[in-house]
Each structure stands twice: as structure tokens, then as C-alpha cells.
């Protein structure tokens, strides 16, 4: 599926080597939430982490309100500050140079790639993709979105994304999410995984919901609790 080779020995919890992950997905799939939580998890484990906002169309709306708080955990957040983007307007936003070169940074790199399906193409703008064999592109799937709600739809959708190494079942309905909704998503995403031979890296959900589900979902995928930061952001 393209130029990125999947890492056969890759594990979600590998802590010995550098972790480089790009989170892609539809609007409202939960990319940013999953990426922020992943970055925090790695930072708390004492790792050097770079969290990169790569929404190049509407930068800084997602991470801006929580940027300072994230930085206080010791991680580096590469994202535009509001004051730096003043003056650009609709004439065009530019990719922050340090984001473009983020893959060359020391430590783990978590890329939060915004702007829906088109956003996946943002990877083409990054320097060093070829030299980063550890790069894992993870597709965040919310099966409660109409265009990714069935196996067929998700298969079509992933084909549009380009190379993908892992799937994350982040099926949710915002505050209305229940364990049933997450499990329903787990079944759909696991079937996609079987068809494509791409692993389900994890099922993610709000802490309250994951507590009810337990450490594994109904398909045996690892369940990762999320602390929800996005309700405090713009979207």
C-alpha cells in the first residue's frame, strides 16, 4: 500500500525505540484526542515527546487552548501560536517550518494530521518520511460517522488515505458514547482489519466507558482510556 513499509515488530507499548506515529482520519473521528492522549502517555512514561499540529488548513484551533498545559508536562508542542498567525487570514496558512522538519527531531514524534481525508496528503509535505522507517500511520475510525459506519465504507475510505499501518477504533458519539457503541465499532473495525491485514492497534474511549468495557474489547483489542481534552478546544 505505497511507500511506507509496515514494521513487523511494532508494538503499541514498545518503549525501547523511537516512536513516530501519524494520526489520520475523518473530521470528528477523534484524531486529535487520540494523538494528545498518546503524547501524554509517552511523556508520562518519561519519554521525550514532540506533539505536532499538522492541520495546515485551520491550524491552532484544536491544540491552541491546551498548548500551554501540554507543554507543562515536559513535551514539546509544535503548533502555531495565535499571535504568530495573525496577519495571514485566508490568503493562505503556511506550514510551520519546525513542523515540516519534525521527523528529524530527537525523541518520539506524534503527528496530529487535521482536515479530514485530504489531510493525509499533508505527509507529503514533511521532510524525512523516507528516512523514518519507524513511522506508523494510524487511521482513527469513528464508526458513528455516516461515511465510515460500515465495513465497505471504511474499506473505501482507507483506500483514499494512502499507506496505513494500523487502525484505531475510536467509535463514539461524544457525550452520548456507551460501551455498546464502542463494541459495535470494534466489530466493524476488526473486520476491516481482517480484510486488509492491518492490525487494530487499540480501541480508545473515554475513561468512564473503558472502565465498563475492561482491558480488552469484544474482539480482543487492547482498550485504551482517553482523557477528553477536545471539549475544551474549539473543535
Amino acid at each position, binding site marked *: 500500500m505505497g511507500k511506507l513499509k509496515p514494521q513487523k515488530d511494532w508494538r503499541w507499548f514498545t518503549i525501547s525505540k523511537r516512536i513516530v506515529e501519524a494520526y489520520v482520519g475523518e*473530521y*470528528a473521528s477523534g484524531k486529535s484526542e487520540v494523538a494528545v492522549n498518546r503524547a501524554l502517555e509517552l511523556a508520562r512514561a518519561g519519554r521525550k515527546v514532540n506533539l505536532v499540529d499538522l492541520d495546515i488548513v485551520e491550524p491552532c*484551533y484544536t491544540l491552541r487552548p491546551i498548548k500551554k498545559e501540554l507543554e507543562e508536562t515536559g513535551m514539546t508542542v509544535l503548533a502555531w501560536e495565535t499571535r504568530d498567525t495573525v496577519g495571514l*487570514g485566508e490568503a493562505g496558512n503556511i506550514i510551520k517550518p519546525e513542523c515540516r522538519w519534525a521527523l528529524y527531531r530527537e525523541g518520539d514524534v506524534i503527528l496530529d494530521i487535521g482536515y479530514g481525508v485530504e489531510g493525509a496528503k499533508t505527509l507529503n509535505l514533511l521532510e524525512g518520511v523516507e528516512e523514518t522507517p519507524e513511522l506508523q500511520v494510524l487511521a482513527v475510525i469513528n464508526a458513528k*460517522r455516516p461515511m465510515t459506519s460500515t465495513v465497505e465504507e471504511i474499506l473505501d475510505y482507507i483506500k483514499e488515505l494512502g499507506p496505513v499501518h494500523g487502525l484505531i477504533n475510536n467509535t463514539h458519539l*461524544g*457525550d*452520548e458514547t456507551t460501551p455498546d457503541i464502542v463494541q459495535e465499532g470494534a466489530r466493524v473495525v476488526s473486520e476491516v482489519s481482517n480484510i486488509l491485514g492491518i492490525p487494530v492497534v487499540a480501541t480508545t474511549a473515554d475513561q468512564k466507558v473503558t472502565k465498563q468495557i475492561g482491558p480488552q474489547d469484544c474482539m480482543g483489542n487492547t482498550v485504551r482510556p482517553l482523557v477528553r481534552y477536545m471539549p475544551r478546544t474549539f473543535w
Partner: protein
Amino acid sequence: MSEKPITGEKRAFMTGNEVVAWAALAAGADIMYGYPITPQNEIMHYWTRQIPKYGRKFLQTEDELSAGFTTVGGVLAGLRAFTATAGPGNTLMQEPMSMAEMMRLPTVTIVQQRGGPSTATVIYSQQEVTLTTMGGNGEGLRIVYSPSNHQELFDYTIKAFNTAWKYRFPTFVLGDGYQAKMRESVTLYDPAERGIEMVPTEKYVGKPGTPGVDRDPGHYRNTYNTEEELFEVLQKHFADYEKMAPEVVEYAQEAVEDADLVIVAHGVVFRGVRDAVKELRAEGLKVGYFRPITLRPFPAEQLKAVANKAKKLLIAESAQGQLARLIKDAIYGASAEIVPMFRPGVGITTEQIVAKVKEAL
């Protein structure tokens, strides 16, 4: 190819722009005409991603003037046609929509307001109220819905097609950039399954038969030779509009009966107002809200009744008094004092409203 886009009720999580695209699909819209502008772009993106499956159409034009006029053309051809725009695009859209007003064409336009004047900001404001309600070079012969959440974006986009085709006035759904981009749950449904019948469309031009022989000629005009003729035609339009108004007007109000102060707000700002009223009532303060859902026609009588009872009306809007202008016109002569809370181009939170009410009481 032309299967139904939605069967059964579906709870989904998405952005407001996607909701609009799905609503247009569910409403059986035949074609969208459009020109890209933030923050409405994803309406086009999601419409065009979906339509190959359902046999619908899209035309990207060279600008909003053209998008508006092609929407007019689509309607003349009997298509359930719509367009979407924002900000300076909405400015350009006014010329074709004035034509639709004069010719009584049921165009549907989604507006996702952004900051102004001019290009300004791409994200949010409520500064297109005056433009969307009264922006034509005429008399505002149009219908404007102001939804406040994703469910309403879905419901009122479907409704807009029916109101437009039933009464034959151009109809607008006035959202904003926050509603466009926000992620929220929504129940998608097929209108037919809810008992909502889509008003059938009808060709204006290209009908079968010979005009004047087999059928009345269709004489749809936006140009008149004499002042008297225009005057006469307009009187008929005004009469139709007035007759329609009570059937179309929508509003919501709560806790206004004994209220000392009533907050008036529309669209996304209403969300903060609703919560503020809950909070203030819990503290024992006599505060209610009035929310116009149609900004054209405006629920004038209903608000005037409220304004004759309450001591004060606090008008909260993300504009410098554009909603207030509609209100003052509607309640002229009423006794309530008007307290402005104008924050042009920026959001208004529950906390800010609560603080402002306490200051005003």
C-alpha cells in the same frame, strides 16, 4: 445508483457542514451550485463525495454571482437546487437572490457566517444578519432560518426546501462558522419516514405544450417598464408574504411570564443564553429568554408581547446590533428598555451572559 441516502434513524457524530450536506441529500436536493469559501467548504466537499452514489449533481462556478444565478437557473428548470456561501460570497450572492425574490423562485441558500466587513476572518460571526435578511435591492421578500445546533441544521435545511417550494420565496439557512466546524451528535433521518413529505418541485420553463394554447404562458420577470407595474406586482408579493408569515414564523421562549429581564439571542449564541437562564433561575433571578428561529419573517407580535411585560430586553449577539435592528423594528412602542450586548465577530459564553445580566438587573 439512486438508493436512499438514509434509511432508519441514525445517530451520528459530525461537523455542521457535513450535517447540511446530509440534510440536502435526505431532502432529495437534485443539485448544488457553489464556489468555495470558508467556513462552508465542507458542505461542498461532503456533497460531492456522496453524490456519485445517489445520482445527484454539483456544479462549481467561477464565483458566487454565478453560483447564485445557476441556482436560480436550476430552480427554473424545476430542480430542487441549493447553494452555500459565507461572508463576501454572501455579498455577491445578493444580486441573484434579489432576482429570485422578484421572480418568486424557491432557491435554498445555506450561509455560514464569518467575520466582516469584507474578507475579515474566516471563522465566525453573526454579522451577516442584515445582509441575509435584507440584503437584496428590494424588500426582503425571503425566509431566513437561524438554527442553533446540528439537529436544527439538519431539520431546517430539509424544511428550507419545503418552505421555499411551498411559498415560492428564496429561503436561507443562516448558520455560522462555529456551527459549521463544531462536532456534535445528530439524528439523521429520511424525511418520509418521519411523515415529512417533500413539496414537489415544478418546472418554470420547458413545460410541455404550447404556451397560450395548451397552458398559460410562464412569464417570469425581474424587469418592469413602468413604476406603476412594479408597484402593482409588489403589492401582490407583499400580500403573499404577509399571508405566509404566520404559517412560517418560528420562535422559542422560556421563563418570560414573570421575567424582569428577557435575553434575546439567535443562532449559536442562543446556546449560551439557554444555559445562562437556567443558571440565573436557579439563583432565583427572574430572567427568561426569547429566541427568534425565523429572522425573516420575524416573530414580531410574539416578541412585542414579551417586551411589554419585561422591564428589560438584553440583546446578545456576535454583531454590532444587527439582531437589535430587527428587534427594534418589531417591538417599536413597547415599554422594555433595551440593553445591548454586542460582541461583533467573537463568541459569547454563558459566563459572559450571566455576568452581563447581573450587571443589568
